[in-house]
């Protein structure tokens, strides 16, 4: 019973993450990769992602504080960030990254700052949700 309940809960949580667009099929790919050899593969990857991305976010924040903005560098950071978030299937985060890159392209400083805030926000949200998910 309890187990079923737990499983169901996991599924519900998981489904909601997908439905709400936090995760996409890439996440499913990761889940498929999980096997007996690495039973916690997905969790490990996600943890790694968040550790890495914290660093990138920090770098981007620093870069955003230096005026005039170095759009190239920012674009680079975002590109990297986008790469990893798309690899784990973090859909919303990836979308925000794309927005950010668009702003960089047109050299819209304000737009960049705002976009970055959104990126951070989505990132934090996802982190929270996934942590909950894994705890279950």
């Amino acid at each position: 019973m309890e187990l079923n309940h737990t499983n169901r809960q996991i599924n519900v949580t998981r489904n909601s993450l997908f439905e709400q667009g936090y995760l996409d099929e890439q996440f499913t790919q990761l889940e498929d990769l999980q096997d007996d050899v690495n039973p916690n593969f997905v969790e490990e990857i996600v943890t790694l992602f968040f550790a890495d991305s914290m660093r990138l976010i920090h770098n981007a924040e620093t870069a955003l504080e230096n005026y005039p903005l170095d759009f190239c560098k920012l674009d680079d950071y975002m590109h990297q960030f986008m790469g990893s978030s798309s690899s784990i299937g973090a859909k919303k985060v990836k979308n925000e990254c794309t927005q950010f890159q668009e702003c960089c392209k047109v050299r819209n400083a304000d737009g960049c700052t705002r976009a970055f805030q959104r990126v951070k926000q989505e990132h934090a949200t996802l982190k929270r949700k996934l942590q909950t998910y894994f705890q279950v």
Partner: protein
Amino acid sequence: MNNNKQMMASSSGGSWKSGGGDGGVSDQFPAGLRVLVVDDDSTCLMILEKMLRHCNYEVTKCNRAEVALSYLRENKNGFDVVISDVHMPDMDGFKLLEHIGLEMDLPVIMMSADDSKSVVMKGVTHGACDYLIKPVRIEALRNIWQHMVRRRKHEWKDFDQSASADEQKPPEEPDYSSSANEGNNWKNTKRRKDEEDEAEERDDSSSLKKPRVVWSVELHQQFVAAVNQLGIDKAVPKKILELMNVPGLMRENVASHLQKYRLYLRRLSGSQLPGGMNSGFMGGPDAGYGPMSSLNGLDLQALAASGQLSQLPPQSLATLQAVALGRSNNSKSVIDQRNIFSFENPKSRYSEVQSQHLNNNNNINNSNNNNNNNNISSNINNNSKQMNLLPGIPTNIEPKQFVSLHQSGQHSFGSMNNQVQIQMGGQSQSQHQVQSNTNAHMLTRGAVDMSSKVYNPVVSVSQASSVNSYPLGGSLGNPNVRATPSGDGNLDAKVSVGGIVPSYDVFYDLSQTREWSLQDSGLTYDQSSLLLQHNHSSGSEMREQNQNLGGGKVMFSPAVDTRTHLNGSNIGQQRNTYIKTESHSDGSFHNTMYSEQYGQDDLLAAILKQQQGVGQLNNEFGFDGYALDDLPV
């Protein structure tokens, strides 16, 4: 999975390739495919590793390009395919791609979150055999083994073709394909059985006149490594042959190549050989240089004309000028400019090239160039006589351009080849071959980063005719700015603007035709040299390319009677030689890639030759087969 791996390991040291005789291995294929993954993003790296393991591949991951290169270098046969990210902090993915193409000739798959057309195109032109968009799905990874097979197949084909007149290759170019170039390793392993016949044929013929051994970049690298290991004094052909362990390679091949190499070294070390730069490898009379001067003018003009090479022309011109100048007047300054051009090679082609080749890629060139120039100038001076600066041709070589030219430098080996070739004129043939091979490799491999720039002009020249294929295919990487005297003014090819400098072709042809009246064609000489180079390396690639000579492709038609045309104005017509450009349909870029390597060297050679006087070239070129042996040392 584990079992497979073990099996693989046991069968061939982890390489299923060698499983020719190991039924188990082949059955398991593609399991056990040895993949090297390079990505600075640890998350992606881990995911990829997992996915590849799920495909039953053997995975090695690293997050730095330099580390990846060292893995590859330490274990030349240790990997079957490389997957690399495009954006990396320590080295640009495309640069890595070039390096790998030049040095190891492994299939490289690029990947990136960036799916814009320009980047993908860049990957293609640099020789990537595939481009994956992140996020990478496991399905995309399952089939990467095809790239390995395809490459092996091509190499073997080249190998065979020379012997067996494949329909793909124009019969007149048997030389380039195979002979031990490209993938000696592969040859040994995989296709051995298939090739055996051909190899035997070749070997047999070698007893008489040695089948032309195409000294591809790779082959030459192996040769140089063996020589260095033994010590130049103690390096005897027999030992070198043993060390190299290349099937199908005969002692005589090595001996003649060694002879040339010695000459080349002697030349490099500052001894200004009177009237002959070539001495280097070519060992033959420097005759080749004569045309060079003419080339310079032509090439530069051609390059300039080519428009496309916007970048190149100045460079190539500059280079040419530099070369010319260098030769004529030790002017270092001139040379410096030239540095940009592949000419860097000229100077110390060998020496510099080696060190530079990796660095050159763009910044170093300038500095290197300078160094090179000095060296070259000394060398060149000998020849310098006529180096007249190209009139009206801007000599400002931008580092960038130069770099590209020097790209070949990356493959130091390649550059060496180029250099060797040029100088030797006739002799260089063999050398060129090596170089060209290297270059070709480099170029084809996509190493050419300049590709974008350069090669356009040359392509036009491509004379669909005998594209002999200088299959520069070798990822010449170095955008040699060979100012190949393309009659149309496209010096193209040679000016390796980033792309492959078809110049090789030109030279190649020149050599082929022997008749170069180097005097006027000046360039022709280089061409032949270039040609030589080309032939080998990409053998198959070139050939095919040549065949396609379609518009953009610069085909090298080696056997060109057009030599005489090489004078520059005709060069375009000469087509044979110049065209090296990879007739690949994907656009001349590839071609340029080849030429790049050649370009630099070729240009230099051409220039040198010109100075020398064309007449000499005639003798030397006996490119017919690029066989090193043929070249009189």
